[in-house]
């Protein structure tokens, strides 16, 4: 039921440490990107780093976002470490 899920993507160090580049998760109780982070972090283990330790940057539908940014079913939400290009 794609209608009730959001697509999550992970990059760089997070992609490696979580051992996945993305997944589709139900977003029934999640109204913001921060809610999603908390939901994922509750899996424990390496997932806890999403809410503690090093900062996590957020993009919603490929635009930089913040924990309070709203998310809706069908959105693409990305979590990644601070960027280091250039």
């Amino acid at each position, binding site marked *: 039921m794609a209608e009730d899920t959001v697509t999550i993507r992970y*990059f760089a160090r997070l992609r490696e440490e979580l051992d996945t580049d993305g997944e589709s998760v139900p977003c029934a109780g999640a109204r913001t990107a921060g809610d999603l982070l908390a939901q994922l972090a509750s899996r424990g283990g390496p997932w806890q780093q999403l809410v503690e330790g090093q900062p996590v940057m957020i*993009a919603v539908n490929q*635009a*930089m976002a913040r924990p309070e940014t709203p998310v809706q079913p069908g959105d693409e939400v990305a979590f990644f*470490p*601070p960027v*280091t*290009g*250039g």
Partner: protein
Amino acid sequence: MSEVRVGEADFDVAQEYARLRDSGGGTGAIATFTGLVRDSGDLSGVTGLYLEHYPGMTEQVIEDLIRQARERWQLRAVRVIHRVGTLKLTDQIVFVGVASAHREDAFAACQFLMDILKTSVPFWKKELTESGEHWVEQKDTDVRLGDRWGE
């Protein structure tokens, strides 16, 4: 006139410069920046870099930065190239080139684009050495250099 390229392919600065120069008789100044793979960063003995990005978002964010630069300065041409994948020591990583009527706008826009690119565009560098790999940490100095341009 602007162009953004993100990919594994290398670039030729002379060719990029020629395209910037070909921006009409009103162009009086061209500023360019090229970033290279260096032998030390977070680690010493760096032999190469692996660069990851967020395809789709990367290009959009750079296009948006160019729009912001055009609002702040009079720019006649802008070219931004950023490589991804595995790069060796001394390889070229990034090119920013700006053509304008005057040097102030060309220098400022070139520096703005590089500073903001470092802190706002979804690229990540991993340093490769003989003894292991390390995801580069974002530097406070880079954040300060980005912040000086305001929102």
